[in-house]
């Protein structure tokens, strides 16, 4: 018996998936969610084998939701029209359903999943899909983090700097800092390069926060931020910073 979740903000869109799933006796619909927040909760609660996931949803979109889950289940994406997402799916050879889809198209996608699932157990989720898929204007303008049971959306302009912390990165805003299970490289790619500069192996800084640069030891520098915080700047970081600031 496989457990399935349907995550879509439109009730009729969910009902159509439920209806198509009726004839599959080996599949049980564990629940339906109307947004990404509910989705995160339900995935934690039910540990589904497969989710049907819409991309455009309130609060956080489907990709942002997946980012918040440590070991995402298999996903069949359903979307009406989303150029960025479709480009990402094509790039990673991922199956997706374009709404409206008919029964035979749905069956094809599901049988595909079932046969893969029977053959080699759990198919790992292609994590590099997310790093491609997040490169949309919307997602370059915000970062979604999870603090305990809560989910918070941080506009990128509120980020002061990002610091490497073991397997995580620590995102510093004015008042708080948040941990996220991603690499520095991921954020370096995601964030607007005209606003965020990787000044050091362990630091990315928002250049609007930098008030001045001070020399520090041999060829290194220290960036002083608006609130007085000091961020180390390496030699190559200094060159990058100079270029972005047009010095």
């Amino acid at each position, binding site marked *: 018996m496989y457990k399935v979740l349907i995550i879509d903000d439109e009730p*009729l*869109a969910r*009902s*159509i998936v439920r*209806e198509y799933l009726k004839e599959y006796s080996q599949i049980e619909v564990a629940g339906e969610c109307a947004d990404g*927040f509910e989705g995160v909760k339900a995935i934690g609660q039910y540990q589904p084998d497969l989710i049907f996931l819409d991309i455009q949803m309130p609060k956080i979109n489907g990709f942002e939701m997946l980012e918040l889950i440590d070991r995402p289940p298999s996903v069949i994406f359903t979307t009406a029209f989303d150029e960025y997402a479709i480009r990402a799916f094509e790039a990673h050879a991922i199956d997706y359903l374009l*709404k*409206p889809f008919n029964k035979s198209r749905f069956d094809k996608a599901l049988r595909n999943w079932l046969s893969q699932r029977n053959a080699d157990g759990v198919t790992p989720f292609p994590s590099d899909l997310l790093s491609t898929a997040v490169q949309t204007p919307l997602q370059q303008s915000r970062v979604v983090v999870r603090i305990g049971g809560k989910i918070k959306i941080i506009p990128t302009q509120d980020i002061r700097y990002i610091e490497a912390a073991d397997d995580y990165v620590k995102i510093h805003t004015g008042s708080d800092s948040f941990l996220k299970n991603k690499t520095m490289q991921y954020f370096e790619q995601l964030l607007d390069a005209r606003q965020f500069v990787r000044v050091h192996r362990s630091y990315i800084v928002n250049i609007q926060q930098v008030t001045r640069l001070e020399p520090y030891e041999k060829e290194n520098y220290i960036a002083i931020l608006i609130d007085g915080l000091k961020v180390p700047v390496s030699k190559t970081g200094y060159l990058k910073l100079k270029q972005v600031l047009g010095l």
Partner: protein
Amino acid sequence: MPASVFSIKRNHYYFAIFWISWSIVHIWILQDRGYGFKAACIDSVVSNALLAGISLLVITTMRHYLPRKESVTYLFLLCIGLGLVWFGCAKLALSYVADEFVINSFNESVAVRVAIAIPVFGCVILMSALRYTLEEQKEQERRNGESERLVRDAELYKLRQQLQPHFLFNSLNSISALIISRPDEAREMIQQLSDYLRNTLRKEEHLWVKLGEEIHYLELYLSIEKVRFGHRLSTVIQCGDAACEMKLPAMLLQPIVENAIKFGLYDTTENITISIECFAGDRLLTVTVKNPFDPEVTFPKKGTGFGLNSVRKRLFLLFARNDLLSVSTDEHIFITQVKIPQ
């Protein structure tokens, strides 16, 4: 300006090869007529170096100044003038480098030499004129193609905006879901969607329509969204008889209501109400659209963004006023107000 003929390296060779061959033929003819080899060489080099030099000058000048049709006579005179200049220069140069025999023979054959030089310059002028005109035309065509492409892109973008593919395909998906369970509602929704699309396609932007008519289509749009999102969406529309008779530019309210739906319905999870209030003032129609928003997701402090710039721009083009569209927030309610002078 078209690229210089000499910007292509191959043309350098053609130019050199032509003049070298021409000079050799020149030497051969003179030897045939009793010149010694050295005398023939001096005569040929001086004459042809000057011919080539003046041709070069002509080609370069033509790049900056292309003769037009009306100056054919002028070009003819130019050829004669160049021929005479060439003659003068050649004579002067020979007096320095050549012996009396060469100079005398040169003077004797003036008529033939000038008669050859003039058509040579004529050819050079014609060829470069042709060449540069062609280049210019190609450049012009490229520019035309580019601007046509821009216009096409803009039109496509506009069409896409009007049709809202996301809305369209999701509505079709809802219909697909309704067909088995609630066929009557499915049919009703197809009807609404068709009317809505027909209106979108028919409307021309410069048209002025009655507010009542515009509100009717907005109601269609909202009722489709109500089917998609079930009980989550309620709407309140207040439009008195006086206001309904007033006129406004077609499709002006549509983007405002779409915006309210986007932030009020697509980006929230609760049950929400969108209200449209129309008020007929003294020679002024005021329409106020209110929608809730989720402050966790949407940051209204980011200026007026919210996709209303096109409305503002349109109002400015119509009335040359920037104060007709205003936005404000009250707690978690976003308020868009548009005034239309009558």
